[in-house]
């Protein structure tokens, strides 16, 4: 499997985990896309720093070869996957913890 395959699988994994396993439905929420949209330019900035200085290098046989801000576009998929997965877990855990908080007595 190349990084392209891995990155696509990572997106698929996060999407299915959010929609079917945790059922947090992050992808249907405006706040999720707003958050993603704000983080994206910062990811590009980070990618640019890490790749323009060759701190991280990518095997050229493992990627499609198209790059954005220095990093393979696969990185965008991987980043999206991580943001979606993180927020889905956060929402799921928040719901669990909040529902365990005892309701005020009457």
């Amino acid at each position, binding site marked *: 499997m190349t990084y392209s395959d891995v990155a696509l699988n990572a997106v698929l994994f996060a999407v299915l985990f959010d929609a079917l396993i945790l059922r947090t439905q992050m992808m249907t929420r405006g706040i999720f896309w707003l958050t993603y949209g704000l983080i994206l330019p910062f990811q590009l900035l980070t990618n640019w720093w890490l790749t323009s200085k060759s701190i991280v290098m990518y095997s050229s046989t493992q990627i499609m070869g198209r790059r954005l801000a220095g990093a393979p576009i696969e990185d965008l998929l991987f980043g999206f996957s991580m943001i979606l997965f993180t927020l889905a877990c956060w929402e799921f*855990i928040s719901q669990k913890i909040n529902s365990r908080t005892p309701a005020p007595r009457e």
Partner: protein
Amino acid sequence: MARANYLYVLLFISACAIFVTLLFRLRAENFWKRFLITDVVVLAVYVAWDYWAISRGNWYFDKNQILGIFVLSKLPIEEILFFIIVPLMTILTYLALKKLTGWGTREP
């Protein structure tokens, strides 16, 4: 110091995290408990993926621009920190935007 070049990115994101927290006066009940549980899951999944990709040579690091401390013999410590700081910043951004817009506060 070139050895800290990767670390600088992490310090930058940490500075953003502190800035956003103070600017929006973010407070959340059980924040660290919720974050700890979330990040253990994120670490388990993405560090495994990272380890696998590094093992296969999908990506590699300039030894002169990292601290040189490795976890599980091939993961630079910066990578572990990355999977702690980036999810933290992601959640803080999410909370800040929720507070700013009021969106999502009445969702299930």
